[in-house]
């Protein structure tokens, strides 16, 4: 190679390096996130990037299990943050994938409703592994024209009256819904927590679900699947999220949802920080930003869920009148006695014995049930 071509090459290399150096100087770094679709909308990500100088790259995951898989892919460290739901968070904590954070560095943390300051699905041994974000109940959705009288119990999903017209989520955590129903209707089983089941209790829940299978039209995997099923009359009753109810009502479908007398399971999402993040400063900036009342309200209305910051209620009504009450963002603490938030089933049931079935068992049972 001649001297001249070396010179050209050097110039090109320098040219390539210059803008890169410029970027890292001007910004606070990059955050790679795994998020639910709709959790990193430009509406609140763009102002964050401007204000903090941190760039956000988000990858959407389709399920809690996928989130766990992604956090562990390539030995971890590929992603800085994850918006983990309660059925994934304990797996990430016990798997050593995420790190404990200091909540005093999050200004809005003290404004969270008590229930969400140290919920068992992201707080272990007094350590906080991330900040709670948003929650929602798993409701009983039904077609008001086809289902009467209006159901008040989860029993409606196990009743042969609606054979072939029932739909429930395609998710192993659905076993907890059966366990919750048994907890209230069969006290002899002694279920205390629908996520901590020993073999007998677990078998009872599975046999309830096996009986339900012949009534099921489809186990829905995507929210849009359930919306289709209700819109086209293929399903008239099912387990759902408020998002589907709102979408269906907006489309003029005759549906309603209810939290039945047994209470309901619910999800609570937490932004968690990877143990191997190289950008802790940016991660804290994100956690603080996403906890502010305005951002909480924006996300709640966009996604159809409920913020954990109590000051978000007023912001929600500012964005959409009545939305605070619609999503129970103004709920009293007593309301949460009836909501059993998702958490990953683990072998340790907290009674000193390790006789509970862990999530792997739940997954296997769910596969066997569907097969």
């Amino acid at each position: 190679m001649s001297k001249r071509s070396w010179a050209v090459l050097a110039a090109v290399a320098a040219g390539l390096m210059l803008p890169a150096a410029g970027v890292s100087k001007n910004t606070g770094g990059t955050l790679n996130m795994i998020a639910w679709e709709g959790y990193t909308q430009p509406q609140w990500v763009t102002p964050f990037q401007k204000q903090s100088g941190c760039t956000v790259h988000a990858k959407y995951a389709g399920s809690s299990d996928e989130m766990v898989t992604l956090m562990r892919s390539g030995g971890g460290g590929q992603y800085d943050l994850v918006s983990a739901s309660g059925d994934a968070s304990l797996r990430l904590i016990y798997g050593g994938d995420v790190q404990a954070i200091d909540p005093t560095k999050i200004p809005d943390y003290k404004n969270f409703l008590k229930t969400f300051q140290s919920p068992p699905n992201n707080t272990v041994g007094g350590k906080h592994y991330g900040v709670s974000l948003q929650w929602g109940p798993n409701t009983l959705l039904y077609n008001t024209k086809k289902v009467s009288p209006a159901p008040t119990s989860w029993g409606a999903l196990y009743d042969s009256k609606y054979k072939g017209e029932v739909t429930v989520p395609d998710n192993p955590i659905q076993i907890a819904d059966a366990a919750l129903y048994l907890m209230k209707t069969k006290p002899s089983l002694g279920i205390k927590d629908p996520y901590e089941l020993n073999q007998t209790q677990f078998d009872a829940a599975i046999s309830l679900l096996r009986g339900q299978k012949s009534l099921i039209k489809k186990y829905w995997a995507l929210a849009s699947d359930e919306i289709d099923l209700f819109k086209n009359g293929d399903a008239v009753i099912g387990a759902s999220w408020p998002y589907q109810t709102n979408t269906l009502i907006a489309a003029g479908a005759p549906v309603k949802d209810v939290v039945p007398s047994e209470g309901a399971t619910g999800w609570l999402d937490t932004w968690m920080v990877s143990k191997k993040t190289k950008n802790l400063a940016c991660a804290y900036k994100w956690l603080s930003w996403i906890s502010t009342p305005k951002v909480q309200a924006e996300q709640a209305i966009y996604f159809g869920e409920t913020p954990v910051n109590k000051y978000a209620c007023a912001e929600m009504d500012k964005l959409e009148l009545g939305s605070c009450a619609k999503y129970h963002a103004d709920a009293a603490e007593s309301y949460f006695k009836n909501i059993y938030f998702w958490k990953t089933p683990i072998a340790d049931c907290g009674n000193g014995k390790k006789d509970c079935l862990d999530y792997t068992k739940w997954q296997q049972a769910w596969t066997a049930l569907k097969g």
Partner: protein
Amino acid sequence: MAAGLDSPQGLNGRGRGARRRIGGALYRRPWLRGLSLLAPPVAAFTAVYVAALAVLFVSAFWGVDPFAGTLIRHFSFDNFRTLWDASVYHTIALRTIGIAAAVTLTDALVAFPIAYFMARVAKPRSRSILFVMVLLPLWSSYLVRVYAWRLILNKEGVLNWVLHGFGLPAANIAYSNTAVWIVFSYVWLPFMIVPIYAALERIPHSYLEASRDLGARGSRTFRSIVLPLALPGVVAGSIFTFSLTLGDYITPKLVGGSSSDFIGNVVFDSVGVSNNVPFAAAYATVPLLVMGVYLVLAKRSGAFEAL
């Protein structure tokens, strides 16, 4: 150093000599020419395809730490034992193979008359129109076609609307294995029509005339001449429809009911959901094995001559 007449690019003497030597060697040894032409694609094929299969097969004997989700590179038959012991995986494998067989049979029965008409009855102009019509669905996304079927089969969909119009009772086949069978038969139909068409078109007209001259009726000619000569085409088409159905997981997910999981769904869930790649690899060897057997049988019937 004079530039040669045959090197307008200005190659220097050494480069030209080397080129000549290589050219001469290739000319004298045709096998070397063949090898140098084939080597790059064969190397790529080996690296990408065969190596991937080998890794798949090896990893099927590994395991996953349930706690940390990391790979355990330790040889064991655990995954295969699970597959053998748990009846749910037998059910799913049999369902997959059963529906793939049903789809193949359906496509063969539907495709044959269409291909026959195209090859032997239609005039050149209408033949090209038919060809376009057969291939047209392939221009649109697979997903669009599957979702379209959902709209047709729904309880309040097109099918029931038509049935209602004729005063017939509503069909309740949305979200069921029947729906999976119908949709698969539809999406893979062109892959059956084209090979059968190719086989039928190659039958010389003189054979049919000879058969008629010898006093055979139409049905006898069909049985003794057309069908045996078209069979390799049918088998070639069936390789497509069977293997495509065997490996699919999207259609069962979208139009299937409460028990419509295919092998592909379990593989997908094992990788994406429970992060258990070794188990997925172990289960993925089942369709590989089935396809292997199928291809051996197909080869015996002479199907590859029609491809």
